[in-house]
């Protein structure tokens, strides 16, 4: 009997807390009359439901990937492996362990690079796992691929049918929601995922990277890093940007001067240098205190959190400036003057009259930042100051792929996989935020 123990990394805890807060907020909002109407408008929007479904799937992958554990070492009573695995690793175990020697193209049976065989002959070596079930009958590959694809489509369709039937009570409970686009998006997703899953049993669907790791596995693991950077960073930056922006705009005077001075100064330091300095300092701290972390994953996670924090500290200025300007406009609105004529306190003017009228800006820039941050992570990883080199992320994937683009023939699959996963993630987030913004704007209703 294999034992294991759960490991709660810092970022896991934050992500679960964030989900819990979002769930509580949603529950609260459903009991507020006007917010319920806004939510109903989101649910009634086809785009919103379709994008929301895709986002939910990404979030699910990130969540599954955030349940970490360590296996008990065989024969030991109280000793655990140093390797921290996640629930996603368990689900994808064959992908994780089936590593080849080096690059191989999607669905290939042979390696991408020639190798010297015994006898001094250069040839493409046979892959260890890719197409292994074909044996020596390489001519059967197209038929095998086709069979797997059909099987995958059938499986995807079946899974969708089951979900559709399982969704009956949901549809009965909220008949006005746009379920068709939601299930349509789900169908599309499952029809793509089915064949990929079926093919992944015998092949490397997206090929392998330099050290022979399956690219599909890397791409799936990258989702968590992207979601983490996108959400945790905004979480850190948002309170500062909103609070300082509104206070600067509404209170004015020396408070405004001080806040403006702060963000102007912060903005004039080259961002990459500031991040580099902070991340390197953090790295030094981590390296000099090896006793803080039981595992390499813990160390990598601390670096991820540090990166989120420093990205948050450097990226609040843009939103803050925007909100300050908008607040300067809003404070002259007559409804703010009317509130002042009643002697409403500054704090409640800011909370009741200014903040709600800024929420659409906050929401839009959140999503813009989300995609921007996922991209920033890629850039920073390239410079070597991003996530820990052991952390799988879109950034490290793209960075590794970048070097191989000049190769002839080109190694395109890592980049393509990272690109398409990021595109779907960011596009879904953008579309969803657009719908949310429209729905929460009473003037557009």
């Amino acid at each position: 009997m294999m034992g294991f123990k759960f490991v709660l990394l810092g970022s896991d805890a934050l992500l679960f807390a964030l989900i819990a807060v979002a769930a509580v907020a949603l529950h609260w909002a459903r009991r507020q009359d006007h917010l319920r109407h806004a939510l109903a408008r989101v649910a009634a929007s086809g785009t919103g439901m379709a994008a929301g479904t895709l986002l939910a799937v990404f979030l699910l992958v990130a969540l599954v990937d955030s349940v970490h554990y360590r296996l008990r070492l065989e024969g030991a009573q109280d000793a655990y492996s140093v390797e921290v695995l996640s629930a996603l690793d368990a689900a994808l175990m064959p992908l994780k362990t089936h590593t080849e020697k080096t690059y191989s193209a999607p669905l290939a049976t042979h390696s991408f690079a020639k190798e010297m065989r015994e006898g001094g002959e250069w040839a493409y070596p046979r892959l260890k796992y890719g197409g292994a079930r074909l044996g020596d009958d390489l001519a059967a590959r197209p038929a095998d691929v086709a069979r797997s694809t059909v099987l995958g489509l059938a499986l995807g369709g079946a899974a969708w049918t089951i979900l559709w039937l399982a969704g009956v009570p949901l549809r009965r409970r909220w008949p006005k929601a746009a379920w068709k686009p939601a299930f349509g998006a789900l169908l599309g997703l499952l029809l793509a995922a089915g064949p990929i899953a079926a093919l992944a049993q015998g092949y490397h669907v997206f090929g392998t990277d330099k050290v022979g790791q399956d690219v599909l596995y890397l791409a799936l693991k990258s989702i968590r890093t992207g979601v983490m950077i996108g959400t945790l960073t905004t979480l850190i930056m948002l309170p500062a940007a909103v609070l300082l922006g509104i206070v600067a705009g509404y209170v004015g005077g020396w408070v405004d001067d001080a806040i403006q001075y702060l963000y102007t100064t912060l903005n004039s330091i080259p961002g990459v240098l500031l991040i580099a300095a902070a991340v390197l300092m953090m790295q030094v701290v981590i390296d000099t205190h090896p006793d803080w972390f039981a595992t390499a994953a813990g160390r990598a996670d601390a670096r991820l959190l540090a990166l989120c924090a420093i990205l948050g500290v450097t990226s609040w200025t843009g939103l803050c400036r925007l909100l300050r300007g908008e607040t300067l406009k809003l404070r002259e609105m007559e409804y703010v003057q009317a509130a002042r004529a009643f002697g409403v306190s500054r704090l409640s003017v800011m909370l009741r009259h200014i903040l709600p009228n800024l929420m659409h800006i906050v929401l839009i820039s959140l999503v813009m930042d989300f995609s921007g941050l996922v991209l920033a992570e890629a850039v920073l990883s390239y410079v070597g100051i991003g996530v820990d080199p052991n952390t799988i992320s879109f950034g490290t994937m793209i960075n590794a792929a970048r070097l191989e683009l000049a190769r002839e023939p080109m190694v395109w699959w890592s980049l393509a996989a990272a690109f398409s996963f990021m595109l779907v993630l960011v596009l879904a987030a953008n579309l969803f935020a657009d719908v949310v913004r429209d729905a929460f704007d009473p003037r557009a209703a």
Partner: protein
Amino acid sequence: MGDLLSVRDLAVGIGEASPVDGISFDIAAGETFALLGESGCGKSMTALALMRLLPNVARVQGGSVELQGRDLLALPEYEMRGVRGGGMAMIFQEPATSLNPVVTVGRQISEALSLHAENGGERALELLSAVGIPDPRRRLDEYPFQLSGGMKQRIMIAMALAGDPKLLIADEPTTALDVTIQAQVLDLLKELQRSRGMAILLITHDLGVAARMADHVGVMRSGRLLEVAPRGRFFAAPAHEYSRALFAALPENLPKPAAKPAPAAALLDVQDLTVHFPIRRGLLQRQAGAVRAVDGVSLRLAPGRTLALVGESGCGKTTAGKAILRLIQPTGGRVSLAGSPVDDARIERVRRTAQMVFQDPYGSLNPRLRIGPIIEEGMRALGIAGDHAARVGELLEQVGLTPAMAGRYPHEFSGGQRQRIAIARALAVAPKLLILDEPTSALDVSVQAQILKLLAELQRHLGLAYLFITHNIGVVDYIADEVAVMYLGRIVEHGTTEQVLRGARHPYTQALLAAVPRIDGKAGERLLVPGDPPSPSHPPAGCHFHPRCPRATDVCRGEYPAATEIETRHFVHCWHAER
């Protein structure tokens, strides 16, 4: 066919709606046709359809437009470009946004002339002189921000004249301007029409402007022309029921409210109120001067009565109102309310005693809050006990709405309904004084009449005192007991409505009254003041009005006149008031 423009069954559709629903009219050369209607009646859409400048969502669905016998709707777009500017030109309501702020006036006019810069400059100069701009050579090199509103509208007219149009379409050309400037611009349009034989299609909501300018009047509602008549007949005996309703809604035609209580002890007493906004310059932000927005204003208002504070934009009337409520910190003077002085320590009592209703019904209600919380806000902030929800329902009924509306958002209401909500919000804390800052100037005349009646009724029931800030003389005549006329931060004339409106002594008051377009079309003895009001940061020495005053003498240039009492409680600040 003597008609310059002939429109037949013109219809414009936006989706299912038809903002213009089959209208026909003719304009003869050199004539002015006024298209009269309230907002949303389709009058601007008609003008845009004539120019073929409709927004993308709108489509001409039928009818014909003939300019000098050419069917404009059938012309290809490149020929239409020649018609615009050459055949007909258009000027818009808001001169501030019609000019490109980063291009000099001269270049903008040259662009309209589409000539080369050298002789374009000469033509531009001619045009600027034609529209009565003083020192046109200097103005050519100036940017729009250096010009006043009236000046900008003149520039717009000059640009419209660049192509020598046969027809000038003027879409509410003076709505954004002050009344004395409006009079100047209307006179200019008449003069240009006479000298150039140009026809004008004047789009307006103002019966007075139509009476002053038009040869023919067309009344429009819901996309239809209800009545077309020559001016004389229209103003003597309007045929359509809606036209008669428009006349009846004019403040001067409303039945006067019942007699008011006689002046008693003052509820509001303002002594020498000043608000100076510092102008700071340089690195150390040292004060280099001050905008004297309010410069020594004294007012008294008794319970249950209405004092109108009248003046043109920028004269400081709104600032004075806000300074009384301490929404703007006054820099000097004393204000007392119900016998006790207003200062920061007793600010809570002020908030309960005096409240404000703002001008823009679209900006004065928070779009994110529902009506209930909006009205409740004052009661909560001032800690007034009781059943707030019930009180909100009561207030909504009091202003002519239904309690069920408390759950709705502001965007679901019309401008007039929003203004009622704003009044209900102010009444929620049971004040004794309401400061009404142009409460009806953003509303159509029929809605304005309803709001004025509501205000009069509330005053009778609740014994409210009103400080009514406005530029609309007609409204003053209807609602006010006393009038104070403000010019450049100071009150120049103060008295009962009868004394000020019927026996004005200050030349500025006289000019203001004369500039109001009257629906009987009688210009009367016209006293047109030239120029624009000076800047309150550099008021002229002596009497502030002397640069524009026809009676100014040396004494006016030297010293500011003290108050002269003409009759009991009728004060005038003028050296020549006795005459």
